[in-house]
């Protein structure tokens, strides 16, 4: 099968990789790059746990043709924290018990990050809409919504400080 060389930014670093024709971004990230943060849930665009950011917008990596991200910037949960310092969203997820099995968490975090990047002080309804494409089978969503709102207020506290 034909293999195409592509280059993209992966969590702020340049990445050059050969991808097989027709392969999806989730596969390339997990098997090619070795970034296991995005998860495979359904492979058909309905669960959201493979969500990554492409140029800041949430994308379902299982449905994204790898070749289409050439020259673009990909963010995944592995790039959220800086060393041992967690991103405020990650800290808020921990403090609000927003994960049980944790399988949905990487997708939830990226959907939430995109929301807060665009809209730092979202309403509850806006949070609900931002994560509406992400299925969680454990938490009942309430702790996740609470965590995103909590992260938003922590980050605005930091901005005004």
């Amino acid at each position, binding site marked *: 099968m034909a293999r195409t060389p592509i280059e993209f930014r992966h969590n702020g670093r340049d990445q050059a990789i050969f991808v097989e024709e027709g392969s999806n971004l989730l596969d390339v990230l997990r098997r090619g790059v070795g970034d296991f943060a995005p998860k495979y849930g359904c492979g058909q665009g309905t669960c959201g746990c493979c969500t990554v950011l492409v140029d800041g917008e949430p994308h379902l990596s299982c449905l994204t043709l790898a070749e289409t991200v050439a020259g673009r910037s990909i963010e995944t949960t592995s790039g959220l924290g800086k060393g041992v310092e967690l991103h405020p969203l990650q800290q808020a997820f921990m403090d609000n018990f927003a994960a*049980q099995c*944790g399988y949905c968490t990487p997708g939830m975090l990226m959907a939430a990050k995109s929301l807060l990047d665009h809209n730092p002080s979202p309403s509850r309804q806006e949070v*609900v809409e931002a994560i*509406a494409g992400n299925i969680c*089978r454990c*938490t*009942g*969503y*309430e*702790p996740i919504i609470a965590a995103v709102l909590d992260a938003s207020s922590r980050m605005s506290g930091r901005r005004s400080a």
Partner: protein
Amino acid sequence: MTLHPGRGFAAINYPIGMNLGGDPSQALVHSNPDGKFTVALSSIDLGQGMKSVTRQIAAETLGVPVEDVYVDTADSDTGPHCMGSFASRGTHRVGNAVIQAAKEARAVMMEAAAEELEVNPDDLVTDGKGNIHVKGAPSRSIGTGTACAAAQFKQGKTVSGRGIFLVPLSPVDPETGEMTPVTCFAHAAMVVDIEVDDETGEVSVTQMNSAYELGRALNPKLVEQQLVGGAWMGMSHALWETTEPYYPDRSHGPIDFNDYLMPGPGDIAPHHISILERPAPDGPFGGKGPGEMCANPVLPAVANAVFNAVGVRITDLPITPEKVLRGIRANGGAKPQRRW
């Protein structure tokens, strides 16, 4: 189109564990070369908190800081036997096995400490912060890690313990069918408020209020988390999840997340929970555990609320809009029951 409010109530008893072959679980506890502890289990943690709660139980029993305990559930082929993480049995069954194993390991640790301090082991106590000292004389002390290291590298002892929880099998009375299937019960009561749309048949939950009695809540935050998530699952069973309808045959039924529906973040309702703690005499530190019962009261409460709202009694789950509409039609219209 009218939205009919309804309120339903349900109360449940939920058995902890079961009566199959003694419902056993085992635990092995040993000290590592660094003087900290590993608890080996085959009891799987899939997010419900098995590791956290057994870690707390082991630390409390051993008398060491919780940071000094590692719970390993890596491999059910090579680990000690466990019946499994189901039937709300984890905290109770496995917790009891961990206590037994940790007690045995603690006894060796205390003997080792006694030998190092040249005192009688009965005169020693742990402070839970990583020290063992002579009762009434805190200055005569040794670290738990140092005592374990002395046992392993000087005295030639393994600091280890074995634990099992096994319920005596309860035979079934051939005449009456009577038996004692479980060792304790947890309880819950729930009030659910809903709205039923009499044009679409859609039911939306607007509020849940519940009270749970599940022994001592060994980790209150984890208990609350399970109850919130479990009630969501109960809503999902009550109103959403089904592999039906399929017209004209199975292959046209819901087979993926597109059609096999579950409530999304926009469908949830505020849920107020009270936790009543009545420690179980045979539970680890009184704990019974929430587990499966988190979902259970929601189903009958929602069914009762639907009856209360529109007078339709639905006896097979889930309560889909189609069933509600058919019921309303069969009754010749929505028949709201007496108000609460």
